[in-house]
């Protein structure tokens, strides 16, 4: 894992953390069958925070952020997103999901639709945006991720890095208030990692609330305001990046950092 790649000055003028709560998770537990994946998770995310979640494979990072838009259901405790509790009440789940963007490790673009159609589909069908307007928005975000010229191609014709940037643009088209990233760069070659990270940095600079599962510690150091370390389904340690990297408290964190940073 590289200590990459964020080689420019970060513009911090819009990166402010408000005291409005965006996500509130308390005493949350989840099991797969008898396997206890998440144990007593307590986490409060304020609007404008950029949180990086790290931890060894199988520690439950993906499961945690997938619980936040209910791709997975938790069994006890509570998750409140934007003031709405995620319960068994199905009525509002699509509403929550349309407010929370999610970027996957394997992009999950829709291969039968063009890039532009990928980006306009949800605004048109979920938000009922007129087609013209949705297309204008989509082009705006495609320009932002620097691939407007690919708009009429199909996902299969793009490189991995380009596909991931389309996936980010697709989420942004829904104008989400929170973005979740699940290892967005780990299926990519090194050159492509940079282009995706750049996009994510820009997003952070605009003040988006972000939760990123990633092993890109350079990214964490540059833009995160909090790093969370998970192991065996628990949040073991959390701190601001400088403290987290230079002065880890927990033994498991130290071990993990020494492995990942190659010290």
């Amino acid at each position, binding site marked *: 894992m590289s200590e990459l790649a964020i080689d420019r000055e970060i513009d911090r003028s819009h990166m402010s953390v408000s005291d409005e709560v965006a996500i509130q998770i308390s005493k949350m537990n989840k099991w797969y069958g008898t396997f206890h994946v998440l144990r007593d998770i307590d986490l409060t995310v304020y609007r404008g925070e950029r949180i990086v979640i790290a931890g060894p494979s199988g520690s439950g990072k993906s499961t945690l952020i997938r619980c936040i*838009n209910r791709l997975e259901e938790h069994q006890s405790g509570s998750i409140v997103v934007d003031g709405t509790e995620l319960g068994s009440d199905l009525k509002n789940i699509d509403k929550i999901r349309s407010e929370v963007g999610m970027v996957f490790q*394997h992009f999950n673009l829709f291969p039968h639709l063009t890039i532009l159609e990928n980006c306009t*589909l949800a605004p048109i069908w979920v938000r009922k945006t007129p087609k013209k307007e949705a297309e204008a928005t989509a082009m705006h975000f495609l320009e932002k991720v620097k691939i407007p010229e690919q708009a009429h191609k*199909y996902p299969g014709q793009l490189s991995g890095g380009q596909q991931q940037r389309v996936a980010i643009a697709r989420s942004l088209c829904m104008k989400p208030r929170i973005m979740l990233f699940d290892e967005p760069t780990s299926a990519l070659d090194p050159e492509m990692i940079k282009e995706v990270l750049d996009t994510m940095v820009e997003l952070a600079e605009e003040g988006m609330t972000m939760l990123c599962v990633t092993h890109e510690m350079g990214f964490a150091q540059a833009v995160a305001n909090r790093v969370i370390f998970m192991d065996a389904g628990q949040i073991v340690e959390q701190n601001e990046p400088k403290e987290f990297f230079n002065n880890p408290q927990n033994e498991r964190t130290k071990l993990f950092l020494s492995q990942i940073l190659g010290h």
Partner: protein
Amino acid sequence: MSDTHAQTVAYVRTTMLPPQDPPRAEAGAIKWLRENMFSSWLNVILTLLSLYLIWSVLALILPWAARGIWDAASLTECRAIRDQLYGEGSDVACWAVISDRWQQLLFGFYPQDLYWRPVLSLVLFLVAVLPVLFTEMPRKLLILTGLAPFVIFWLLWGGSIWSAVSILLGFALGWAVLKYTSEPLGALGSMILAVVVPLLYWFLLAGTVAGALHAVLPIGIQEVQSKQFGGFMLSIIIGLAGIILSLPLGILLALGRQSDLFFINKVSVGFIEIIRGVPLIVWLFTASLLLNYFLPPGTNFDLMLRVIIMVTLFSSAYIAEVVRGGLAALPKGQYEAADALGLDYWKSMRLIILPQALKISIPGIVNTFIGLFKDTTLVVFIGLLDPIGLSNSIRASTDWNGVYWELFIFIGLMFFIFCFTMGRYSLFLEKKLRREHR
């Protein structure tokens, strides 16, 4: 080298020679033959053996077919002509049975002066499917496609135009239910209601409505009874109706089988397994005999309609399994991405999942359709006059008693043309979709 100019160096060619053809043995048919048919000793033997086989089959059939007699009124007459032309007892086809009875093979006992109606229906159908089969056509034409079945129904069976209109009303009713109850009842409840309400309407009210409308404004054409239908017309009507109706039903069953809702899931599984587990012929007998016991006495429930329903149910079970395969082949990420964008179940199915799953399933779906189309010949066992049934009745006449091959070859050829066309269309569609979404 880069600064060496051609004109300064004598041995550098300034003009290019025209390209030469490759040597004879390396080009065209000869090369192809050598590479594909005579590349090794084994290959040579196989090639010669195959050629001999093909030749002997053709030597048997071609003279028989080509010397066939087209112009005769009965088999006896045919034989007389043959004896005169080719000598006593020589083996030639008697195509005269086709030229004498082709109308019957195509239309059954449909009134001769009304043949234009099924022909017009076929033309109408072909025009109506164009925008479905070829997505380049303007989408507005789909409205005509939706109306075509009712016009065709009216053309074929005739009678008052109001019966077709009153059936159409049932669909409009279903659509209205779907539109106005989906808010208060939720998608599933409103869909069930949208099926039940029109069914009730058709069984209880449609007849009365049609009668009342006809009394006010009698418009109609000569009526034709179902039992006069026959021949390829019958096969095509049953086959196409089955194909068109079984696709949506099969898709719903496949979704039902995948569903987490206990009741929906079990009903779909049960339906599919029961329908698939019993031969079609049994279902056809059920349709023709048993249903009479269940229906209230005096109801006149058209046998052809019953057969269409049975054939539809039968093939929808197969379609469901084919589509389920397509659904299962999609990566889980597609479902998750659709969910994560906030699409509800029906939208994510319609916009994301089904277009991809159906694309994967095209070969299987078309395969099922071809099977269904050929299976329509089974209706002969419940007394409908499909082409096979007609060939029996033609043979029962004293004129053509003893003709077998000619009739079966004609029938086989007709079925082949239909099935081959469907197969080709499926290939075209696969290629086109692959090109689009590489």
